[in-house]
């Protein structure tokens, strides 16, 4: 009997130790990746990175056109995708909460949420790029918008469903029409959560590479025409990191540091916003 309980105690200690080790492993991986980024990226973090164009190999330069392209396409993608996602989420939570369509839309929206982004790129290539005959910033923004829609739709629906029905009933009893109930009451109550969704979507698309590879392609030069191929930070990192030139690789690391810092700050902001919401 004592040996049996000792065995149980030992296996308990072993497995709990293993799970402790698993958590440590996850944290170590995070720290290693972030440390490598800082270590390699910070060396190239000079003002010229933000003021000069991507250089040909062997000469000095920065990432200005890539940063600009990334910002423009990301914002445009968000501007196109967010209203659609918001409205779709509103339909699922408010107007069609009990309709069969909602079940189908929710399911397919969830699939779209986790679908490989490269597939989205192929779709936009087929539909936009081959029609127009050339790669363009607009096509890139459309691809990013398609990634925004499911994220925003999902969080909007979740947050609207958390709004107590008594609030809606009170507003309706005052004689407000349905649309005003949604705008003035439900949206107002769910605003922090909806903003969280927008931030998460923003964070997600600002690091996306795969769908831009064959929609926006890339551009070595300064370009403000969205009808032309447009550079973006992730595609420049992809190209420069795989090149054999040391100075290009350095720029890739620096770009990686910039993206990761942006994305992590955005997602931390989104999470802390979301957690104050649920804590209340």
């Amino acid at each position, binding site marked *: 009997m004592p040996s049996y309980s000792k065995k149980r105690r030992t296996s*308990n200690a072993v*497995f*709990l130790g293993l*799970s*402790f080790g*698993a*958590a440590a492993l*996850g944290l170590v*991986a*995070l720290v290693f*990746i972030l440390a*490598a*980024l800082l270590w*390699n990226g910070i060396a190239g973090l000079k003002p010229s990175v933000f003021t000069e164009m991507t250089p040909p190999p062997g000469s000095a330069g920065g990432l200005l056109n890539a940063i600009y392209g990334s910002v423009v396409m990301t914002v445009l993608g968000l501007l196109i995708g967010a209203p*659609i996602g*918001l*409205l*779709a989420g509103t*339909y*699922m939570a*408010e*107007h*069609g909460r009990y309709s069969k369509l909602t079940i*189908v*839309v929710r*399911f*397919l929206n969830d*699939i*779209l949420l*986790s*679908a*490989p982004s*490269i*597939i989205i790129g*192929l*779709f936009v*290539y*087929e539909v936009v790029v081959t029609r127009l005959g050339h790669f363009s910033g607009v096509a890139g923004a459309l691809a990013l918008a*398609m990634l925004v*829609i*499911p994220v925003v*739709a999902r969080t909007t629906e979740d947050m609207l469903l958390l709004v107590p029905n008594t609030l809606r009933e009170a507003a309706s009893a005052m004689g407000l*029409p349905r*649309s*005003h109930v949604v705008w003035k009451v439900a949206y107002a109550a769910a605003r922090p959560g909806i903003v969280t969704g927008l931030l998460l979507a923003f964070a997600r698309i600002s*690091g996306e*590479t*795969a769908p831009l*590879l064959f929609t926006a392609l890339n551009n070595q030069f300064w370009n403000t025409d969205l009808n032309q191929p447009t550079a973006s930070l*992730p595609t420049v990192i*992809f190209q420069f*990191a*795989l090149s054999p030139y040391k100075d290009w*690789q350095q720029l*890739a*690391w620096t770009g990686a540091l910039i*993206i*990761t810092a942006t*994305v992590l700050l955005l997602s*931390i902001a989104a999470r802390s916003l979301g957690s104050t919401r649920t804590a209340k």
Partner: protein
Amino acid sequence: MADITLQDRPVARRIDAGRAAVLSRFRTVDSIFAGLTLGAAILVLVLLGGVLVSLVVGSLPAFNAFGWRFLVTQTWNPNDDVYGALGAIYGTIVTSLIAMAIAIPVGIGIAIFLTELCPFGLRKPIGMAIELLAGIPSIIYGIWGLFVFAPFLQSTVEPALIAVLGPIPVFGALFQGPPYGIGVLTAGLILGIMVLPFISSVSRDVFLTVPPVLKEAGYGLGCTTWEVMRNVVIPFSRTGVIGGVMLALGRALGETMAVTFVIGNAHKISASILLPGTTISAAIANEFTEAVGDLYTSSLIELGLILFVITFIVLAIARYMLLRIQRRAGA
């Protein structure tokens, strides 16, 4: 009230008319808004349908040329315009399996740590730190994998694997050949790190849905923490954990950039997981803009269609299982 009764009829009628106008404006706004939201919801369906249709249409030339043989041949030869998907499908599945072999035990371990062992004050920060792993863009995993992780594997881990496991008959064939650093194993390991947060956060969430009374009953019988986890918590939340695992698998199957950097891009099936291979998404990312000729492009799109179908099935199962857990948690 009294004022109104004193009004003569034209004024009352005017008020009625004003009221009617306002009401009808409300009705119009309401129906426009409802219509807009319905339109957006339908657009989601159209987009997903559009993805499927465009991939099918785009892959028709390749399908007409190669038929079902596309799925089972390994040749990938742009010079002769002959293509087969088997190498890429194999690479996709093997890298995902390696990723799962790493991420399932570690992810569930983290979930156990976060729900049972971790001091309360640390649960949130540690949980958030692990989830940050999911927030890092995949291109970052790629560049880290190429410049940091792959050289590390090449210099330390792979020589050890070759020396220790290589000589074992049959099983050892997986670990033979020179240590390149880049290859199927490296890609699988990086995918494992990337999908870890999906498994750990879903598992943690479903562990928390286990009624405390069940766990207390276990402890009341004298079970150790591990025994309660193994015999009560994990069986109770199995559906949800499997859902999380499938979600992670869907991610691993479709992940592109990280894999493209470290897999080596060779369209062939090697017995050893240390050698270069390719995955569907890596092949598309690498070759699509260079693909000259309709058949080449179309073959890559057909690869995309195969990937879409595989991930669709996996994700559908994942969502179905998570839905079941959610329903139970809600009830």
